C-alpha cells in the first residue's frame, strides 16, 4: 500500500517536476535579475528579453495551436497580432483628426480598448479562416501569406485612419510605461501567456478540441460523421486570431507605438521560425523558441569566433544557428529536450521499478512516421492513458 503511494508520488514528481521548476523559474526571473546585473541590465533582461519572449511566444503559440491541432500552418498570425495592436491604438488614443481629414481615436481606457481589440481580432481571425480554410497545402500558405502582406500594405499606405508609414505612438497599457515599471509589465505578460497556454491545453482535451484533432487527421471521415469541417476550421482560426490578438495587445503596450514595420514580411517569417525552432508539436515550444530566437537575434552581433567578429555579419550567424537547430533537432528544441528527458526517465525507471518501466514504455516515436503522418501532439502521445484518449 505504502509502496504504491510512494510509486505514485514518484511518478507525480517525475511528471510535474519539470513544469513546476519552469513555473518557479518564470515567477522568480525578474526578482533574481537585480542580484546578477546592474539596474539597466536587469530592466533590459526583464523587458527586452523576458517580456518580449512571452509576447513573441504567445503569437507563436497561436501558430502551433493551429498547426498542431488544426493541421493549418497559417502565415497570417503576425498580421492578426498587428491588427489587434492597431485596434488598441484606435480605441485607446484620444480623438484627433489626421492630416488627411480622417477622425481617429475613441479615447477609451486601456482595458476596454484591449477587450474590443481582442473581439475584433477574433472576428478578423474568423474572416481569414473563412477565406483560407477551404484550401490546403501550398495554396493555404499562399493565401494566408497574401492576407498578411496585403494587411501590411494597407496599414503602410492608409493615412486617413491607420497612420500610414509612421503609425501611432503614445499608447499606454494598464501597468503604465513598461520602462518605468518593468516587473509589473513582465508579470502581466506572464499571466496572459500562462492563461493562453493553459486555456489552449484545456481546450484541446474538450470535445471541441478532439473534433479539431479529428478534422486534422481525417477531414473526410469527420465530414462523413456529420461534422461541419469548414465551420470548425473557421473556429480554429478565430481562436488563433484571439491568441495572436493577445500578443498584439501586449506588444503595443510594450512598444508604446505601432507602425507597419511590426507586421512586415520579416515579422511574419519570424513567427514561423520561432514555432519551428521551438518545436511545432509542442505548445510550450512557442516560448522555448521565442527565447532562443531572441537570444540569438540580440547577441549574435556580440559573438566573436576564432577572431572573426560577427558584428556586421550577425545575420549569417543567426541563419547558421537555425539551420543547425533544424538539422539536429527536427522536432525543435523542445523535441530535443523532451526526447532526452524521456530517455533519462526510461533509464531511471528501468533501474528502480522494472514493472512500471514496462508499463510506461511508450513506443519510441519513429521520425518517418512524423513525416508521413499529420503532425500529432507528442505530449498526448507520450502519456495516452492519463488523457483519457484512446488512439
Amino acid at each position, binding site marked *: 500500500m505504502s509502496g504504491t503511494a510512494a510509486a505514485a508520488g514518484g511518478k507525480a514528481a517525475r511528471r510535474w517536476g519539470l513544469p513546476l521548476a519552469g513555473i518557479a523559474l518564470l515567477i522568480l526571473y525578474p526578482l533574481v535579475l537585480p542580484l546578477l546585473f546592474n539596474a539597466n541590465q536587469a530592466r533590459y533582461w526583464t523587458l527586452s528579453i523576458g517580456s518580449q519572449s512571452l509576447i513573441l511566444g504567445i503569437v507563436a503559440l497561436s501558430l502551433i495551436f493551429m498547426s498542431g491541432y488544426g493541421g493549418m500552418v497559417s502565415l497570417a498570425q503576425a498580421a492578426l497580432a498587428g491588427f489587434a495592436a492597431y485596434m488598441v491604438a484606435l480605441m485607446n488614443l484620444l480623438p484627433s483628426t489626421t492630416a488627411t481629414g480622417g477622425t481617429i481615436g475613441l479615447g477609451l481606457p486601456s482595458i476596454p480598448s484591449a477587450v474590443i481589440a481582442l473581439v475584433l481580432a477574433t472576428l478578423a481571425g474568423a474572416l481569414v479562416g473563412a477565406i483560407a480554410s477551404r484550401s490546403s497545402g501550398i495554396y493555404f500558405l499562399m493565401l494566408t501569406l497574401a492576407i498578411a502582406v496585403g494587411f501590411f500594405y494597407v496599414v503602410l499606405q492608409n493615412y486617413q485612419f491607420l497612420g500610414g508609414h509612421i503609425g501611432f505612438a503614445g499608447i499606454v497599457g494598464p501597468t503604465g510605461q513598461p520602462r518605468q515599471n518593468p516587473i509589473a509589465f513582465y508579470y502581466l505578460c506572464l499571466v496572459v501567456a500562462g492563461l493562453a497556454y493553459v486555456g489552449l491545453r484545456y481546450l484541446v482535451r474538450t470535445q471541441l478540441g478532439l473534433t479539431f484533432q479529428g478534422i486534422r487527421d481525417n477531414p473526410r471521415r469527420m465530414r462523413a460523421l456529420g461534422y461541419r469541417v469548414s465551420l470548425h476550421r473557421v473556429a480554429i482560426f478565430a481562436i488563433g486570431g484571439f491568441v495572436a490578438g493577445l500578443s498584439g495587445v501586449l506588444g503595443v503596450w510594450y512598444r508604446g507605438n505601432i*507602425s507597419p514595420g511590426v507586421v512586415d514580411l520579416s515579422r511574419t517569417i519570424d513567427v514561423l521560425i520561432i514555432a519551428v525552432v521551438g518545436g511545432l508539436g509542442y505548445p510550450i515550444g512557442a516560448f522555448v523558441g521565442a527565447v532562443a530566437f531572441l537570444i540569438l537575434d540580440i547577441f549574435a552581433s556580440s559573438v566573436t569566433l576564432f577572431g572573426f567578429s560577427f558584428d556586421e555579419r550577425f545575420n549569417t550567424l543567426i541563419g547558421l544557428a537555425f539551420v543547425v537547430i533544424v538539422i539536429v533537432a527536427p522536432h525543435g528544441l523542445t523535441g530535443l529536450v523532451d526526447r532526452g528527458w524521456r530517455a533519462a526517465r526510461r533509464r531511471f525507471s528501468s533501474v528502480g521499478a522494472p514493472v512500471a518501466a514496462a508499463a510506461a514504455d511508450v513506443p519510441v516515436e519513429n521520425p518517418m512516421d512524423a513525416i508521413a503522418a499529420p503532425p500529432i501532439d507528442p505530449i498526448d502521445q507520450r502519456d495516452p492513458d492519463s488523457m483519457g484518449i484512446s488512439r
Partner: protein
Amino acid sequence: MTFTTTKKLVILSAAAAILAAACSSGNATTAPAGSAAAGTAAPAESAAAASCSGHTISLGGLATLEGPFAVPGQDSFRGIEQALNTFATRADKKGWWLGDCEITLTKEGSDATPAVALEKAKKLIEQDNVDILIGPLSGDEGLAIKDYAKTVPDKTFVNGSSAAQDTTFRDPAPNFFRFSTDGAQWQAGLGSYAYKTKNYHNVVTVAEDYSFPYTQVGGFMYEFCAAGGHVIQKNWVPLGTKDYSSVVSNIPTSGVDAIYVALGGSDAINFFTQYAQAGGKAKFIGGSITVDQTVLGTTGAFQDQLVGTITASPTSDTANEPAWNEYVKAYHEQFPDGLPYPGLFALSYYNETVGVLKGLAAVNGDLSNGQQAFMQALAKVAFDGPTGHIALDQNRQAIGPNYVSEIQKGADGKLAAVVISKADNVNQTLGLPADSPYLAQPVSRDFPSCP
C-alpha cells in the same frame, strides 16, 4: 543506445556552447592592429592627447545592416572607424585612446524600421552599457531614437545620418545631438537654382513615402515656392517600389517643366528606366541620394536624359577641396574595399564621431554626474570637417555646408555630378525666419504646398 546518447550529449553541449558564446556580451570591437598606423594624418589636436585616465569610454554604433540601406550601413561604420583612426590613436599602443582611457566601439545593425532600431539601441544602452550611442542611419529610426533618448537622460545620443527634420527641430531631446545636417538642409540652394537659373516653374514630385523624403521635398519647396514656383502634383510611393507605371501615367504630359525625384538606389533606377520607356521627356531634379554613383553608373535608356539634372547634397565627390581630398585619401588607405568615394552616410557618421571626440577631449573624458559636463561641452563643439565648418544650434542641430551640383557628361562619356555652387553655414530653417508660414507645420505628404 550508448552511441545515440553520446551523440545527443555532444549536440546538447554544442548548443550550450553556442548559447554561452552568444551570451558573452561586451565583446566590443577594438581597432585592428593595422589601422593604428593607418591614421597617418592625425592632427595636433588629436583626442589621444587629452589627460584622461582610469576608465574605458564605450561607444555604441548603430547603423542599418539589413534591407535597402545595407550598403550605406557598412559605409557608416567606416565613417565611425575612420574618425577614431584619425583622431584617437596613439603611436605607442594599439586601439583607440582618449589620453589613457581606452575607447571601445560596439556595433549593432538594424533593418531601417523604427521598432528594430529601438530594440538595438536599448541593447546597446541597457545591456552593453555604452556611454554614447552614435546612430541611427534612417529618418524614421532617428525619430524613434530621439523619443527613447528622453527616457535615458544620463546617456548621450549622437545622430548617425538620419535626416528627418523633427528629430531636432520640434520637441527635441536635451541629450540628442546631430552633427550632420537634415534632409531639408541637404536641399539648400536647389529650389532657387531650379527656379531662377533653370527656369523651372511647374514641378511634379515623385518621392518615397516616409519622413526623410518628406523632409527633402520640404527643403526643396521652402526655396522653390518662396521664389514663385508651383508644385502641381506630389506622388508618394512605398520604399522599394518596383512598378512605377501608375505614377508615370499620372504625371501630366504638358505643363510640367521638371520632375523632382527623391528616390534612393534601385527605386531611382526603376523609376528613371520606366519613365524613359514610357517616352517621358521632362527634365529631372534629384534629391540628395537620388543621382549618386549607383544610378549614374547604370547603363540604360535614361542615361542621356539625366544630363542636366540638378541635385543638392552635403557632400560632393568632385569638390576638390584640400580637406575633402585628404579625407578621401585616408578613407581609401584605411578601407581598400570601400566605395569609390565615401558617401554622405560615411561622412555623416564621420562628422558625428569627430564631434564626440572633440567633446570628450574638452572634458578630458569626464562622463561622471550623468554626463552633464560632457553634454554641455558637446553642445559647444564646432570644427572644420572634410566639407566645411560645422557648429550646433540651440537645438543641438548642425549648421553646415551644402552643395548644388549638375549632372554632366565628361570627356570619357561617363556621367558625373559637377559642383555649381556651395553654401556654407546652412541652418535648419534654410534662412527662413522662425515665424515663416513654411515652418508652421511639420513637413509631411501635404505640407508645404504651393500648387
